[in-house]
Each structure stands twice: as C-alpha cells, then as structure tokens.
C-alpha cells in the first residue's frame, strides 16, 4: 500500500438531510448506521461513537446511546456520545480515529445525528446561541451569525470587496448542490436571488446562512482497509483553538483555530485535490480557505469568483455544495463532510471522474472556537 494511515473509512451512509417530522433520532440513526455497516461488510464493531449537539435540547434525551443502539439491534459495543457543538462530528471522528489507531484489527461505528426541526426557528436560534459564551455573549442576545457578520464586514472592508463578490459563495454552492443527490437545496441560485434575500445580520443575507436540517450520517472506521474495493485512509489530523470570547481576538478576518490546526501538515499552498470546509456561513467558508493556507490572505474571494476552486481545478472546494447546500445538521455536519469526501475520493456517483488522490476536511466549532482538520487519501 505504501501509505501508513491512522485508520480507514470502510463504509459510509448519509441520509438526505431535511425536515423529518415523521422520524425521530432513533429512526434516522438506525437507517444511517445499518446501511453504513452493510456497506462495510457488517464487521464486528468495538464501539459506537455518536456525534450530536442537540440530542438533549431538541430530543429531550440524555444517555441517548442505549436508546439508539437498542432500536438498531447493535449489541456488545459501548456507546460514547461526543458533544462539541456544530464541530461534534469532526471531534468524534478524531476520538474514533485514535481508538482504531490503538487496535491491531478492529472497527468502530461513528454516527453523526441531530434534529433541529423538532423545535421552532426561534428555539433553533436560541440553541445555536449556546455555541457562544452563554455568560458573556449569548446572555446579551448574540448568536453565531452576529460574529460571522462582524467578520464579513471587516473582511469586505479590509480587502475592498463588494457584497456581490461574497454572493459567489452561495451561487457556487447552490450550483454544486443541484447535482448532489443528498443535498437539501437542489436548486441553482442567481445573483438576484441572493441580493434580494432578507438580511439576517448585515452584510449577511439568508443565502449566506446554511439552513438547519435534520440529518444522520454514518462511517465505519477500521484499523485495516476494506479489501473489497478502493479504500480511503486517514493520514493525519491537526487541532487548533482560538480565544473563546470573540471580541478579545486579535484578528477578525482569519480563523485562528484553523491556522493552528493545519500546522499538523506541510504547508498546503501546493495542495492538489478535494477540500471540504465547514461553511455554516459563507464568510467562514471563504476565511477557511485562506486560514488553511490554500491561498493568500484576502485573495480567496477573488480566486473563488475567478473559478479557481471549481470542480476540475487544482483545489476543488465543497464539491457537494457544502453546508450551504447540503444543510447544517449541527453535530452531524462534520460526519456528512467526511462521508462526502470519502465518496468523492472513491469516485462514487455523481463524483466520478474527479481522479483526486487526497482530501482536506475542515470541521469547526461555532465561529472559530476549535477546529480539526483531516487529511484523507485513496489507498490503492
């Protein structure tokens, strides 16, 4: 094989995100988990990792592991729930990865699951505000979009961009989502749609915000590659953190946690392949590209508009449409990113013909609280 990986993604399954009023946490979990296990050849699993941010808030359920396991008939493996806000998926994957890296031969199951649509949008906003410091930020009514908007304003001002330049993010993500079978938004968007959408927190409009969706995505992570087909290995990861109190940060136009996390790898300025960024808000996708070191500070929006990050190029960003089009399933979102990157590397439809060898996946907690970045590679 020639590549030494920490673990291998031997099975994946994603539920098309949406508003599942007819299904609860257990139904979505079972569907994603059982199909992912089946796709990996039903191996024995040593642990079930559950990435969820909202299970007690919208599901009114603590200790959800055994409920989900019993309904799905998965026995003899302990369940471990990981909560780290909308970055739960990436952080659960990091823990699961360390688990399989410590085994000679074995597999674990990771399921990212959340159901924001159990509650109204006002409640969803309140729960999203819990991603901020509840004593000193959300106490006063601030929410993640406030922080993202302040960053967007500073970025557009500092680098002399217009809002129309930022609108390209939403347009490109909708365009990609239209071709992705599991995307929530499957409709292309025009500049007019973006410009006429309601302001959420200026300059950010509705089209700059990823929509809350119910979702479940599952991965089977093993210490040895699946021999039945092309496998995807996880070569490594990096972690980083920023100041928790937003106003105290030195720079409002960079994601310090991403800059820290990517130090685990060689500089990515020559990276060639697939990139998946956690674009809960358009500006965070743009800033992630710069903070990952894929381009210079202040240049991402220009390059995006010039098509540098489009499919077929050297750096292909959010080929599935990102959180903007696939949807923001909170704790599950990072697992969607990882599952999607795996499908893209394997060349599963509609991602066939890309011939990419490697993928960088960036998952972030809130607005630059903590980030984790993974490097995935095809193992031939």
């Amino acid at each position, binding site marked *: 094989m020639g590549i030494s990986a920490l673990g291998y993604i031997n099975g994946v399954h994603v539920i098309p995100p949406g508003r599942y009023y007819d299904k609860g946490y257990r139904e979505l979990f079972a569907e994603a988990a059982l199909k992912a296990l089946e796709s990996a050849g039903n191996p024995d699993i040593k642990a079930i990792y559950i990435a969820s941010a909202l299970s007690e808030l919208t599901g009114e359920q603590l200790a959800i592991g055994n409920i989900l396991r019993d309904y799905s008939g998965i026995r003899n493996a302990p369940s471990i729930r990981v909560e780290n806000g909308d970055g739960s998926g990436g952080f659960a994957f990091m823990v699961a990865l360390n688990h399989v890296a410590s085994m000679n031969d074995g597999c674990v199951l990771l399921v990212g699951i959340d159901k924001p649509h159990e509650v*109204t*949008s*006002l*409640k969803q*906003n*309140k729960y999203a*505000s819990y991603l901020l*410091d509840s*004593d*000193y*930020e*959300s*106490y*006063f*009514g*601030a*929410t993640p*979009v*406030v922080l993202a*908007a*302040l960053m967007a*304003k*500073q970025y557009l001002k500092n680098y002399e961009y217009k809002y129309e330049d930022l609108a390209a993010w939403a347009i490109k993500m909708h365009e990609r989502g239209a071709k992705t079978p599991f995307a929530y938004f499957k409709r292309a968007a025009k500049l007019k749609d973006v410009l006429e959408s*309601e*302001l*959420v*927190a*200026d*300059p950010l409009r509705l089209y700059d915000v990823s929509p809350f969706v119910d979702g479940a995505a599952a991965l089977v992570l093993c210490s040895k590659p699946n021999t039945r087909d092309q496998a995807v290995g996880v070569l490594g990861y990096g972690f980083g953190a920023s100041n928790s*109190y*937003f*106003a*105290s940060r030195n720079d*409002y136009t960079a994601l310090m946690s991403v800059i820290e996390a990517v130090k685990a790898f060689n500089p990515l300025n020559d990276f060639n392949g697939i990139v998946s960024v956690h674009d809960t808000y358009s500006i965070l996708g743009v800033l992630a590209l710069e903070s990952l070191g894929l381009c210079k500070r202040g240049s991402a929006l220009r390059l995006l508009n010039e098509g540098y990050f489009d499919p077929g190029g050297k750096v292909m960003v959010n080929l599935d449409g990102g959180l903007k089009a696939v949807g923001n399933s909170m704790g599950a979102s990072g697992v969607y990113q990882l599952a999607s990157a795996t499908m893209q590397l394997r060349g599963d439809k509609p991602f066939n013909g890309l011939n990419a060898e490697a993928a960088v996946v960036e998952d972030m907690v809130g607005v630059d609280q903590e980030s984790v970045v993974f490097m995935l590679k095809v193992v031939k």
Partner: protein
Amino acid sequence: MVDQSLSVPKYWRRIPQYYRLTALKCRKCGRVYFPPRAICDCGSREFDEVELPRRGRLIEFTVLRSVTSDFEKQRPLIFGIVDLNGVRVLGQLVDCPNPEKLSDNAEVEVVFRRVKEDSDYGIIYYGFKLRPLKGCW
C-alpha cells in the same frame, strides 16, 4: 409553580461583569482580561479587580434581524465590538434608531439597561449596553 426558564444563580454570580464591567488585571504583566480568566497568558494567577472605562470607540457593528426566543420583542438588535482603552467587549448598541448613520470609530459610552425578562413571573435581567455619544438619529 413559577414559570421560570432561566437560572438565577447563573445571572447573580456575573453581576460584577454585567453591571460594572469588572475585569481582572494581571499583577505581573498588567494585562487586563474581560471576561475574567483563571490564568494570565504570562502564567501568573494573581490578579486585581479593575472596572473597565465607561467610554470607548466602536470598532465594528451589525444589525441582527433574526433573534433568539428571549429577544423576540426587541428585534432588531444592534451588536458592536467596542474598544474600552485596549480591552474589547461585545455588546448591544442602544439609542440608535438609524445604525447606518454610525461612523467608524464612533465614540460610545457604557450604559446600564434591562437585558431580558424571564417570562411573566421570572426575574428581570440587567446589564451593560453601549450608547453612541453623538447618537445616530
């Protein structure tokens, strides 16, 4: 039973920060932290309490139209980052009906205001807000 969803002790213990912007100043290097921290970046754990200045400059602001359930009646909310003599805080801007008239570096003062109420029978929560000195009418 009183219909109360917010925690009283969670509010009460932060009153020094909410009412008076009480920060911590490191005895070793002099750095000021708001909100307070247990350890300074220089490694020291010894601090003195200081109150942040009541006047500062606006660095950036945004108008939030999609608010949380606790702030539904106050929509829209204006949020700003304000520099209070080198310490930056995030807070609500008030007495500003036309935020588009706010200028960069506008001078603001700290004021004491009602923040939110806990339904019909819970307590009323107070805290600092930020008022542009020249207004924005």
